[in-house]
């Protein structure tokens, strides 16, 4: 969609009421336009906020457990994994098996749900896309933002659980815990990248509806959630970090459970770079196809 602001003067934060109104030129665009137009995103910030607020609000409305679902889901899975893992003799890197699973499941659950909801978001908001103009990136971004709200809750509870466990077992949280926001940021970039790209594909090809659940499952097996990354042999062990969730999951474990141990810095660095690349690629793709959304949706 056309998005070239021809007003040459830099806009001030709050335009004076009698300042000449801004002119927007509408024309067929070539190349990149909107996502790389931060001024436009800033202009619609209130809408971005309202959409995110909506997605947070409706997430648990009319549910009994409410936001507790953010931690109930990973905890339920953790119990299953702990039982199966012990029975099958899967290594947990010498860490307490339950926490080994939970530390990975918290970021994974965030990612899986943000990815799924993100990829559906544009199609679910058809009416908005077809009837109103605003930077469309806000729709998948709002879903991921609402997921972040959950992630903060579940991570906080995770820290509390680890802390209580540590009190009983003489295992203390280390300074490594402070890297959690950075690790969470990798997970957010990954979810935003994957969700944004597939939401855009979904506008044109509804095949995405069938691909995403299946892709999430594959992704899950490629991520060391119920097995440790150390069970892979080199070079696969390091290369696997191209999947950004590998660095996130291993990083979460290290930050919370193994702070004294060897930091998986290489994994984290590769994953961070990979997530950033995914996000940039996804935004560029989104930007290219955004202009045709209203025609196709």
């Amino acid at each position: 969609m056309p998005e070239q602001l021809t007003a040459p003067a830099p806009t001030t934060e709050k335009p004076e009421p009698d300042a000449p109104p801004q002119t927007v030129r509408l024309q067929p665009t070539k190349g990149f336009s909107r996502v790389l137009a931060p001024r436009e995103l800033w202009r619609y910030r209130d809408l971005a906020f309202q959409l995110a607020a909506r997605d947070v609000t409706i997430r648990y409305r009319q549910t009994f457990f409410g936001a507790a679902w953010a931690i109930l889901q990973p905890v339920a899975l953790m119990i299953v994994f702990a039982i199966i893992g012990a029975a099958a003799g899967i290594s947990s890197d010498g860490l307490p098996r339950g926490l080994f699973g939970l530390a990975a499941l918290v970021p994974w659950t965030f990612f899986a749900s943000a990815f799924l909801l993100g990829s559906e978001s544009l199609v679910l908001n058809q009416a908005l896309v077809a009837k109103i103009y605003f930077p469309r990136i806000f729709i998948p971004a709002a879903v991921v933002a609402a997921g972040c709200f959950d992630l903060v809750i579940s991570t906080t509870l995770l820290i509390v659980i680890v802390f209580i466990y540590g009190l009983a077992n003489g295992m203390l949280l280390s300074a490594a815990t402070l890297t959690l926001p950075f690790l969470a940021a990798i997970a957010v970039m990954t979810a935003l990248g994957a969700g944004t790209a597939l939401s855009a594909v979904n506008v044109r090809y509804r095949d995405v509806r069938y691909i995403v659940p299946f892709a999430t499952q594959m992704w899950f097996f490629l991520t060391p959630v119920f097995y440790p990354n150390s069970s892979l042999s080199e070079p696969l062990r390091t290369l696997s970090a191209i999947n950004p969730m590998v660095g996130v999951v291993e990083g979460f474990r290290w930050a919370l459970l193994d702070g004294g141990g060897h930091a998986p810095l290489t994994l984290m660095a590769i994953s961070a770079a990979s997530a950033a690349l995914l996000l940039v690629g996804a935004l560029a793709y989104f930007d290219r196809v955004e202009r045709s959304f209203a025609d196709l949706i």
Partner: protein
Amino acid sequence: MSYTAIQAEELGKSYRLGLSAAYGSLRESISEGMRKAVGRGRGPVETTRRDVLWALRDVSFSIESGEAIGLIGHNGAGKSTLLKLLSRIVEPTEGWAEVTGRVGSLLEVGTGFHPELTGRENVFLNGAILGMRRAEIRSRFDEIVEFASMERFLDTPVKRYSSGMQVRLAFAVAAHLEPEILLVDEVLAVGDAAFQRKSLAKMAEVARAGSTVVFVSHNLATIQALCERAILLEQGKVIADAPVEEAVSGYLRSLERAATTDLLDRPDRDGRAWRTSQVRRIGIYDGESGEADVIIGGRSAKIVLEVTKVLPMMECQVTILNNLGTPIVTFDSELSAPTDRRDGELGERIECEIESLPLVPGRYRIDFVLKGSQEIQDGLQAAAFFDVEPGIVDGRPIAPAGADGDISLRHSWHLPA
């Protein structure tokens, strides 16, 4: 101080027709891509040119700030496409436009209302969607709620509202938008009459307050009331850009011209793209003389439609409108009565018998919607025109042409002697 609010130069928008162009599954695209690669552009590639529809082409105009402009034209003439272009929802295929000022577009009432959110939450969400700042919404919140008159339901989820309440709240939000340019697409045709009047008054107020208004409506009376100037579109092109009276009469002429062409040739119809039944012919006949297209006011009349195919559960809705597009009366077979019947003898005909059509003399038009197999099959505005000659209702002459109102009713007076 006035400036050019909207300047459009040779604006054009094309769409690719056909299901695969718009939706299509990945498989279709892949196989299409392979065919192109292997066949070097043989075969289906040639068809693509034919499948392009120009919804709008070579559209140029200029609108000064503070002007109120009506966009008129048949269905499919490109009015809605033009509004979507100007509000930046879709991108032009060619040409350009410059829009100066904050744009508020109302292409639909209540876009973005979320059923799970409460009225209060939806006011904020919808306000933001329409482009209002949060502070703005907060400062006008009470006004909005009062306009919609629903203080009591503010904290109830909108899904428990009646549809009328939803529309009222949605319009209340929209009405408090204060854009420099307001683009409106016939959203006023919602709600009860009192609310419509309130909405219309609000629109006029916005226009008077100096905003630029571009307004799409089929109701020419509304257009004439609100706008000084109108742009008439026909098949994606500007036919007239003139003072409202002139543009409106141009539109009326084009409606009449369209009505004389064979109905099946009309491109401006509603309904599914792959209709299975269409209306081939429609006519209105005087019940006594049997004469077509001329009715004596107050006499019985019969509207006859011929369809191309008889489907199960056929239903039909016919509306008579006055010369300015104000609907006078609707006959709807879905609101059934004991006198209705389904009759195999009719063949492909649908008939509506009217005991008395007490219209004021003048020219009227007929719109219809045809349903069958529980779907809308066909619909046309201005499918036919007819004249009403002076007549009598229950012994009393019908008011002459030009009187207030369009119909007469049986009545009697009791006056002091």
